C-alpha cells in the first residue's frame, strides 16, 4: 500500500519526503515537497507536447466539486478517475473542493457539506463521499470535513464546523474499515477549525487517539479558497499552522490546498508541509498573467513576480514570457501573440499561460526540493520574499466563485450560515 516516508529533514527548515509503493504505480517514487496539478484542463496531448514528463513524477488533484458527475460512468467502467482523465500514470489525489475557486459561505446542515455544480447545490455526506472514493480510486484522498471558515469567522461557525468534522472523521474511519475497496487506501484526515487553536486541537486529539487510522493530515478551513488564500494574513497563518503541526505525528504526510503565494508556500514548507496544489497557477492565469518570479539563487536578480499579458505594452513585444524558460509557450510563442490571443478572447491564450505558469511553478518546486537537500531554503525564501514584498498590494486576483453570482454574498454571516 502507498507509503510516505520522511527522507531527510534540513536543520534550516523543510524536509524531503518520498511517496512510494503506490498500488497502481509500483515502480514510481514521488519526492515531496510536491505540487499537484489541480483539475487538469490541458489535455494529455497538450501536456506531452508541452514537455511535461507524465511518465516521471506527474501528480494531479481532482476535487469532488469538479468531478462529482463522474461517479456514474466510473461505476460502470470500474477503472479509476485518473484512467478516465487519460493520466493514469499520474499520482492522483482527491479532496472536496477546488482550491482555486472562491467558495462563499453557505448555509450548512448537520449531516453534509454542500458543493456547487452549475450553481446547483449538492449536499455531500460522508457516505456519498466515501462511495465516490471507492469509485474514483485515487491514490490518496482527504476525509470529508466542513472547511467553511476563514480568518474572522464567527466563533460559533467554527465550533459547529469542528464538531461536524469530528463526527465526519469518525464516520470516515468506520466507512474505510468496512469497505473492501478502501480498506488499504491512503486516507488523509482533514483538520478544520478556522484560526481557533482550541477547536483544531479537538479534532487533532480525536485523530491522535488512534493515529494508525490515518495516513496524513490535510490542514483545511483557513480560507474559502480562490483569492482568499492569496490574500491571507501570513503571521496568523504561520501561527495556526505551526501550533497544529506541533500536535501531529512528525513522520506523516501534511497537505495544504489553495493559492498561497510562493513566499507563503515557502514558509509553510519550512514548517513541514509536504504537498500543495496548483491553485495559484489558475489564479494567475485567470488574471491574464504569467509568473516570472526568479527562483535561481545563483543568479539572485529580483523581478516583479508576474507580468500582465493583457497590457497593451506587450502587443509588439516578441520576447518569450520569461527569457530562458524552456516551456513550450516560451520556446514557440511570444508575449505579443499571447496579448493578441487574450485580447481576442481566444482559448489558446489561457492555454499558453497555463503551460508556462504550471511549468514555472513545477520548476519552482523542483528548486525547493534541491534547496532543502542542500540546506539553502533560507536563501531561496529570502529571494522570493523580496520579490513578493515589492509586489505587495499590486497583484489583484479575480474573484472566481463556485456558485451563481446571484447567490453570492461575500462574508455572509447570516443565521442560517452559523
Amino acid at each position, binding site marked *: 500500500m502507498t507509503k510516505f516516508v520522511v527522507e531527510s529533514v534540513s536543520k534550516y527548515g523543510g524536509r524531503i519526503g518520498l511517496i512510494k509503493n503506490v498500488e497502481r504505480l509500483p515502480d514510481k517514487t514521488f519526492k515531496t515537497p510536491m505540487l499537484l496539478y489541480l483539475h487538469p*484542463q490541458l*489535455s*494529455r496531448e497538450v501536456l506531452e507536447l508541452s514537455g511535461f514528463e507524465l511518465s516521471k513524477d506527474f501528480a494531479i488533484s481532482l476535487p469532488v466539486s469538479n468531478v462529482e458527475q463522474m461517479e*456514474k460512468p466510473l461505476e460502470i467502467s470500474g477503472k479509476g478517475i485518473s484512467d478516465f482523465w487519460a493520466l493514469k500514470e499520474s499520482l492522483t489525489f482527491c479532496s472536496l473542493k477546488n482550491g482555486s475557486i472562491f467558495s462563499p459561505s453557505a448555509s450548512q446542515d448537520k449531516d453534509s457539506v454542500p458543493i456547487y455544480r452549475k450553481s446547483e447545490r449538492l449536499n455531500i455526506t460522508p457516505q456519498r463521499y466515501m462511495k465516490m472514493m471507492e469509485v474514483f480510486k485515487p491514490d490518496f484522498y482527504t476525509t470529508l470535513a466542513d472547511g467553511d471558515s476563514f480568518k474572522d469567522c464567527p466563533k460559533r461557525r467554527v465550533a459547529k464546523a469542528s464538531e461536524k468534522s469530528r463526527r465526519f472523521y469518525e464516520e470516515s474511519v468506520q466507512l474505510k474499515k468496512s469497505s473492501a475497496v478502501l480498506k488499504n487506501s491512503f486516507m488523509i484526515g482533514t483538520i478544520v477549525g478556522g484560526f481557533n487553536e482550541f477547536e483544531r486541537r479537538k479534532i487533532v486529539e480525536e485523530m491522535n487517539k488512534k493515529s494508525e487510522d490515518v495516513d496524513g493530515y490535510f490542514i483545511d478551513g483557513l480560507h474559502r479558497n480562490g483569492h482568499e488564500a492569496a490574500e491571507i494574513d501570513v503571521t496568523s497563518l504561520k501561527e495556526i499552522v505551526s501550533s497544529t503541526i506541533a500536535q501531529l505525528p512528525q513522520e506523516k504526510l501534511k497537505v495544504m490546498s489553495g493559492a498561497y503565494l510562493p513566499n507563503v508556500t515557502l514558509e509553510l514548507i519550512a514548517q513541514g508541509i509536504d504537498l500543495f496544489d496548483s491553485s495559484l497557477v489558475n489564479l494567475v492565469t485567470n488574471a491574464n498573467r504569467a509568473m516570472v518570479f526568479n527562483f535561481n539563487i545563483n543568479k539572485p536578480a529580483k523581478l516583479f513576480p508576474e507580468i500582465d499579458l493583457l497590457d497593451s505594452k506587450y502587443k509588439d513585444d516578441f520576447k518569450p514570457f520569461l527569457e530562458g524558460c524552456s516551456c513550450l509557450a516560451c520556446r514557440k510563442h*511570444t508575449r505579443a501573440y499571447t496579448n493578441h490571443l487574450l485580447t481576442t478572447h481566444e*482559448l*489558446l491564450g489561457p492555454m499558453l499561460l497555463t503551460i508556462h505558469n504550471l511549468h514555472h511553478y513545477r520548476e519552482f518546486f523542483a528548486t525547493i526540493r534541491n534547496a532543502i537537500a542542500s540546506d539553502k531554503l533560507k536563501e531561496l525564501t529570502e529571494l522570493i520574499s523580496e520579490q513578493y514584498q515589492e509586489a505587495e498590494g499590486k497583484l489583484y486576483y479575480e474573484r472566481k466563485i463556485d456558485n451563481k453570482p446571484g447567490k453570492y454574498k461575500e462574508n455572509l454571516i447570516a443565521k442560517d450560515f452559523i
Partner: protein
Amino acid sequence: MNKKIKLLAEKSPLTYKVLNKCSKSKARKGVMMLRETKPVETPVFMPVGTQGTLKGVLVDQLKVDDMNCQIMLGNTYHLGLRPGTEILQKAGGLHNFMGWDRALLTDSGGFQMVSLLELAEITEEGVKFKSPFDGSESMLTPEESINIQNTIGADIIMQLDDVVKTTTTGPRVEEAMLRTIRWIDRCLEANNRNDDQSIFPIVQGGLNPELRKQCAEALTERNVRGYAVGGLSGGESKNDFWKIVSLSTDKLPADKPRYLMGVGFAADLVVCVALGIDMFDCVFPTRTARFGCALVRTGQLNLKHKTFEVDLSPIDDKCKCSTCKSYTRAFIHAISNDLMMCSLITIHNVSFQLQLMRDIREAIEKDEFPEFVKTFFDDLYPDTKPEWIVDALKSVNIEIQ
C-alpha cells in the same frame, strides 16, 4: 516526381500537379508546392483559424503525424483589426506571429465585412464601411485588401470580389460579376509580393450559368496560379449549388487548383471532389465543437446530451486523433462545462475532416473513388439518399442508388 516538382517550385511560389485522376468522375488527386512550406496534397480541407489560432489547439497538435494539417486559413478582416497590420509587419507576417511554418491562405476580408457589418456598401472603388470601433468611415479597396494580405504574408491570398447574396437575381448579379473581373486586375497590379504570394481570382455570377461561364472564361485569361469558386453555400438550393460548381470546374483550367469557398460539410466535400474541386474551407467543424458537437461518418453527436453520460467508447473507434485515442464520450460529456471540452472536440473534428480528405485522396490514387463515394453515402444515408447528391454524382458517372 519529387525532383521535378521541387525544380518547378523554385521558379514559382505555387506549382500544382495532378497526380491521379478518377477514371469516371472529375475527381483528381494532386499536390501543390508552395515556397518555403511543405507540400499541400489535394483535395484538401483547410481548417479556419480566424484570428491566428484554431480554438484551443496548439499549432504543434496540427502537425502531429496522425493529424498532419498542411494548410490553414486566416481571416483578413479579423487580423487587420486585431492584431492589425502594424504588429503583423513587425512580427514578420502571420506565419511568424502564430508560430506556424506550414501553408496559410487568407481571404480578402470583403465577404466578412459585408456579412458582419450592417452598413457596408459596395462601390466601384471598393467596400465602404463604418469602423466597428469608432464608427469612422473607411474603404476597403482591392489594393488595400492585397496590401493587408501582403503584410499578413499567407502563401495563397484572395482577390477582393463583389459579393452578392447567393439568392440575388437580376442586373445586380451581372454587375457584381463584371466588377469582380475588374477588381482582379487591380488586385494583381497591387500585389507587391507576387514572388511568394499567389492571388486566386474568384468566379462569381450567382446562380446564372451564363454569367458564371463568362466570369470563368474572363478569369482564365489572367495569369494566375489557381482559382476559387465563390458566392455559393449561402442558402441556395442544393440543386443549383452543384450545377454551378460543376459548370465552374468545367470552365476552369485543368492544370491549376480549384478552391470552393466556404464549403465543408462532409457530404458536400465528397460530392464536390467528384465534381473536380481541390480545396475547401469551412468554419463549421471548429465552430460546432464549441457547442459539444462531434463529427462522425454517420452524422454528428451532441456530446452534451444525456445519452452519452455512461458511453465509454471513444467518439469514433476508428479515428486516430489524440482525443479518440485517450478519451471516451462519457468523459467529454462529464467535462462539458470545462474549457478542455472545446479543445478535445476541435481536435477530433479537424482530424475528422482531414482524415476524410486523406481517404478521398487514397481512393482516387487507387482509382477506387466511385466505390468510396458509394460506401460513404450508404453509411451516411442508409435509407434514402438526397436527390441532389444522386443527380450530382450521376452527372459524373457515379451511381449510388
